[in-house]
């Protein structure tokens, strides 16, 4: 038996797999449904092995019917099960928005609290995979805009496992979004049982001069930027909200008040995206502490191009974040 404190290095993919396996063992109401989730373990192989342990009744291969499986998930969740609906690419959220926004998110409220929808909709985000415009989007801003949905964006193996377990145990619909590019990223994960609560941001690096708020894939970009900045003698604090809804505004604002400067980085398109909300929360609440305007870096406002030299320009990089930070620190 392993002591709860024993820690291993796992990839995000392994951590996610453990989170699923533990919750499937813990609660027989939990099941997974999606395209090629069983034998194939999804095209990304992250779930490979689950069907062997839990069988095809609980790891269910579905037709290519995103709207249908989302709707089926809502009905199953209302009637005593805890479905995890797997939507391969975040780009296919386009097909489930009705079941997600008009049904899952609103049923509890519309029924005056009678119906509950403990559903997890698992999907992905991220570009630079050379997958072009319909397989590279980061659409978290859409779902974060819908009252009644919780939105989770893990950035480390530890958070991925702990947040997934909380999402599955939550009595509300939760959209859980993994970065397609970072499943191989490794990090420490304790042996024992733990969860990470939804709605609590995490300071990934402590600093004094500028706050870098990053989500999902952009947390790593911010940490790399912090390294570059350190070389220039600029001390950057990196804050990961971890969940967009509920949003831990206080931790973001406190950090910005401390440093007086903030940059917000998200891989979704910049306009009307997640960075707009985070930046305006900071700009409004930390107004009297800011030495410079809050800067936003998001994906370029263009469909994601296939051609590598074009695609590489669409996503924020550590160098661009660092440059923006240097610029801010020169100001005021």
């Amino acid at each position, binding site marked *: 038996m392993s002591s709860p404190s024993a820690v291993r290095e796992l990839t995000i993919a392994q951590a996610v797999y453990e989170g699923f396996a533990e919750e499937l063992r813990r609660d027989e109401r939990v099941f997974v449904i999606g395209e090629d989730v069983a034998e194939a373990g999804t095209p990304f192989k992250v779930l490979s092995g689950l069907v062997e342990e839990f069988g095809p009744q609980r790891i269910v291969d579905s037709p290519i*019917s995103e*709207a249908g499986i989302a*709707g089926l998930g809502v009905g199953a969740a209302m009637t005593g099960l805890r479905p995890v609906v797997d939507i391969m690419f975040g780009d296919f959220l386009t097909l489930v928005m009705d079941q997600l926004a008009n049904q899952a998110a609103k049923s509890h409220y519309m029924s005056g609290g*009678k119906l509950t929808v403990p559903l997890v909709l698992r999907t992905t985000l991220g570009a630079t995979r050379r997958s072009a415009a319909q397989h590279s989007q980061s659409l978290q801003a859409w779902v974060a805009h819908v009252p009644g949905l919780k939105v989770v964006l893990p950035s480390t193996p530890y958070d991925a496992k702990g947040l997934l377990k909380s999402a599955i145990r939550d009595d509300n619909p939760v959209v859980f979004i993994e970065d397609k590019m970072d499943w191989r990223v490794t990090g420490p994960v304790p042996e024992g049982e733990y969860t990470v609560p939804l709605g609590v941001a995490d300071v990934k690096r402590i600093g004094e001069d500028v706050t870098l708020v990053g989500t999902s894939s952009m947390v790593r970009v911010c940490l790399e930027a912090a390294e570059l900045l350190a070389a220039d003698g600029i001390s950057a604090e990196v804050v990961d909200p971890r969940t967009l809804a509920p949003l831990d505004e206080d931790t973001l604002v406190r950090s910005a008040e401390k440093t007086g400067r903030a940059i917000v980085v998200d891989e979704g398109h910049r306009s009307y995206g997640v960075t707009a909300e985070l930046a305006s929360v900071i700009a409004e609440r930390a107004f009297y502490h800011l030495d410079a305007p809050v800067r936003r870096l998001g994906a370029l406002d263009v469909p994601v191009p296939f051609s590598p030299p074009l695609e590489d320009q669409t996503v924020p990089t550590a160098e661009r974040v660092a440059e923006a930070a240097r610029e801010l620190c020169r100001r005021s």
Partner: protein
Amino acid sequence: MSTAAERRAAESGAGEAGAWLDMYRAMTTIRLFEEHVNDLYRGAKMPGLAHLYIGEEAVAVGVCSALRRDDYITSTHRGHGHCLAKGADVARMFAELLGKEAGYCKGKGGSMHIADHANGNLGANAIVGGSTGIATGAAFSAKQRGTDQVAVCFFGDGALGQGILYEVMNMASLWSLPVVYVCENNLYNEYTHYLEVTAGAILDRPRAFGIHAVEVDGQDVRAVHAAAEELVARARRGDGPSFLLCNTYRQHGHHVGDVDRAYYRSKAEEQEWQGARDPIALLGGWLVDQGVADAETLAALETAARDEIERGLEFALAAPFPEPGEVTDDVFA
């Protein structure tokens, strides 16, 4: 556990006859309820609009009387009939339609979103076709949990235009789920005749997915009930999904505000369905012919229903609105 019809028959002690009388009472209750809703609208006493079920009572009552209390239904924007037939209380329904705290959804849902979880009603739905996935998921859940519950999905002819219906019928068929898709073909999608927007033969659609499909006269509650009993039993014993096409008609407008209808349907058509094809008159006539009931019995049932409804309406009108602060409650469980 017994079905509503069995239970009622037993209670009324009159066996089958009692069940038919009970359906007469249930249909009459829906009819009167909707007439009062129409009056509330015309008297500007009800916020918003409502889609009346008048003329279609035999479908909800025929189907729901074949269900157990723990069976599920999903409903539509035209959902009052389904809700009442599945066992909802008149007073709390009126309260919901008036946006009152005592309503089934504390006034937050209103006419198009009444849910009555205790009686297995997973909610009316204002998205055409929006509940087809929910009903299919409830059936998936019943099967997964090893119960013998059945889910009934009510939807109109207009929902035949929504792709999700075909996505979920495919899964229901593949996995042999205990769901009955009940299509209420009342001839119109809002203001457009269904033949103008529906290609092919309706029954061929479920059949294309390997789903057993049956058509009945939706004005004949006995025919609807018989078909429903068979399809529900089929689902309950694990023989999978089915599709019940009920040909019916809404006697009023698409919603309470739709009063000038000449541009999309004829008075003659309306009169035929309001007269010779009225489901309550049809059942009443049959009950009298069969000697099951005489005019007084039926009148007495109607009076009883009317009393229930007037008491319920009085309660609802007097009931308080929710506290303003409740607006932010119930967003999350």
